[in-house]
């Protein structure tokens, strides 16, 4: 899986929050690499830290941050050491942009669609000429499949699918190299979802973009991803290329996740994962999945390190210690 062109490299990223009940370790030492022109999906149950990971990479942090450490290399440049202002100017929405969860409901109701899409341009790229901005907005809308006569409409006049496309246009208008999408289609109908996935696929090919897709829906994730990462309890559980992950997951959690996905076309006996994910406030000693793992053994009392296997896949599980 070694890519000569590593676009994003994350090293030991940690994000802890201060809450009334203690320190919440949302992202607890995550490291991975993503090659250019690849699309990676981050899957996991709700509360596993995947959205926090996105926010940590993009430095979109709330006020109650307790710890925020690690290294993030974007296109060779280490961006964690930049100041907030430098980050805002050089990185966020310039090199990487974000489509947040339920963003289609967060469109400004009093601004027209075109102005909305133009906003990131005006803020981050500081384009002076109105004509230039208009041209870029039109390009972005065409790219995502929004008819141009929607430019003068307001957000509430658009259907859910159209609004989501507008949000994606906003993420693309500044020509970033990396787009992080957090549950981009979970609130949409199946057909609209399929249409938008088609569009996203096409856009990626046309612009040679890199995607990080965050979702808990394993089925739809296979639409976009050629790489995958499984998160559990704030940690990376498995990192694979898509072929390996969907057909032959390594980590017991990944396997159980796959087994719990209902399949329409094949007759599949469904399994479910008993128990609940651990609290991120006081993660237990040892492997965090061990309490729910059917293949648990004595070594699991220790927290396993992520093993990099000979086929390039990374698994955080003692069962694979021999293949590192």
């Amino acid at each position, binding site marked *: 899986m070694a890519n000569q062109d590593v676009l994003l490299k994350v090293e030991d990223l940690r994000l802890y929050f201060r809450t009334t009940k203690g320190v919440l370790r949302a992202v607890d030492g995550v490291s991975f690499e993503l090659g250019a022109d690849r699309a990676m999906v981050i899957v996991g149950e709700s509360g596993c830290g995947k959205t926090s990971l996105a926010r940590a990479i993009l430095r979109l942090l709330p006020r109650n941050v307790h710890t925020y450490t690690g290294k993030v290399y974007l296109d060779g440049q280490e961006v964690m050491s930049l100041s907030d202002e430098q980050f805002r100017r050089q990185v966020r929405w310039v090199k990487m942009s974000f489509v947040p969860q339920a963003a289609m409901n967060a469109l400004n109701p009093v601004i027209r669609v075109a102005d909305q899409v133009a906003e990131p341009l005006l803020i981050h790229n500081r384009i002076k000429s109105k004509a230039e901005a208009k041209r870029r907005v039109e390009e972005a809308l065409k790219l995502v499949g929004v008819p141009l006569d929607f430019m003068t409409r307001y957000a509430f006049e658009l259907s859910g699918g159209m609004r989501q496309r507008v949000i994606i246009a906003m993420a693309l208008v500044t020509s970033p190299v990396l787009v992080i999408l957090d549950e981009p289609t979970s609130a949409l109908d199946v*057909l609209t979802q399929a249409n938008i996935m088609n569009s996203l696929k096409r856009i990626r090919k046309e612009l040679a973009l890199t995607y990080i897709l965050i979702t808990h829906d394993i089925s739809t994730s296979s639409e976009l991803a050629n790489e995958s990462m499984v998160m559990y309890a704030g940690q990376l559980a498995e990192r694979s290329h898509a072929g390996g992950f969907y057909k032959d997951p390594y980590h017991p959690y990944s396997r159980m996740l796959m087994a719990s996905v209902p399949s329409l076309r094949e007759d599949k006996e469904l399994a479910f994962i008993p128990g609940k994910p651990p609290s991120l406030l006081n993660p237990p000693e040892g492997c965090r999945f061990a309490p729910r793992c059917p293949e648990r053994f004595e070594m699991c009392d220790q927290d396993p390190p992520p093993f990099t296997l000979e086929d390039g896949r990374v698994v955080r599980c003692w069962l694979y210690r021999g293949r590192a």
Partner: protein
Amino acid sequence: MQRTNGKLLEIKDLHKWFELRKFGFIRIGFVRAVDGVTFDLGPKEALAFVGESGCGKSTLARTVLGLHQPTKGEVIFQGRALHKLGRWYRSQVGYVQQDPYGALPPFMTVQRILEEPLIINRVARTRAERLARVTEVLEEVRLTPVRDFLGKFPHMLSGGQQQRVVIARATVLRPKLIVADEPVSMLDASVRVEILKLLRELQEAHELGVIYITHDLSTIRYFSERIFVMYAAKFVEKAGVRELIHNPLHPYTQALLEAIPDPDPKNAETYKDVPPGEPPSLINPPEGCRFHPRCSRMIEGLCDVQVPPEFEPQPGHYVACWLYRDGEVPAADN
């Protein structure tokens, strides 16, 4: 209690329209949420309604539950019209809703939540009887040990546990019919299957009729025998589960099935063949077949003018599509 044909529920040409008013009193039109729906449900049958949001399935559910009055048409339960049944009907039908936390009053304990229907309907009059019934249903939904859960408030439970309480509440009166509107769509993927399996077990154990409403086709095969596909306030296809999945006839159903992904890495390289556009507005639906603006196999002059009736090209498999007007499955298109 007479039963005609032994059917639990018979819906005949049901319409439910909501008035749209301007300034509070000028009527400017109707939202036709349910626009001519007919079907039967047997006493031990599990039926699934599938459709995208805005197609009217939730309104249909609420009308069957008696929460809305039909604008036209009838809802017949065990041979008697709904509006004649009064209060008794409430104890015969249970409602499982989509939002497990929202469906439970946050200021009541689990015990109280489950006792409310009993108290209101004057079932199990003494405290001891009520407690016995509550214990029974909690055991059925596998929230054990029961005494741990009786005193808990909804916010102390996980999503899956909350939904189990909702299901327990729906069955506490020992109804004959359960209407479950998207019962698992707000739960984590790993929990969905458990809950669906639970519903299925309850249905079999108590011989309940169940109407299961969802937009997620992939869960259908685990749950029901028959599927009705709904589009723009009407049914477009009705068939048994396996038949529908392997042999979808209506272009919309075909598109739905095509659009559902399986976790297959090849998906990243292929594009899905789905119709563009959005479901139509229910205020001014298209003329003729409501799907015709998006249908790649539309027949000019027919589909855009006349509403297709239900055809039965195969026994038990009904389609409301002009493609099947000759009573047989046409040759596959390009």
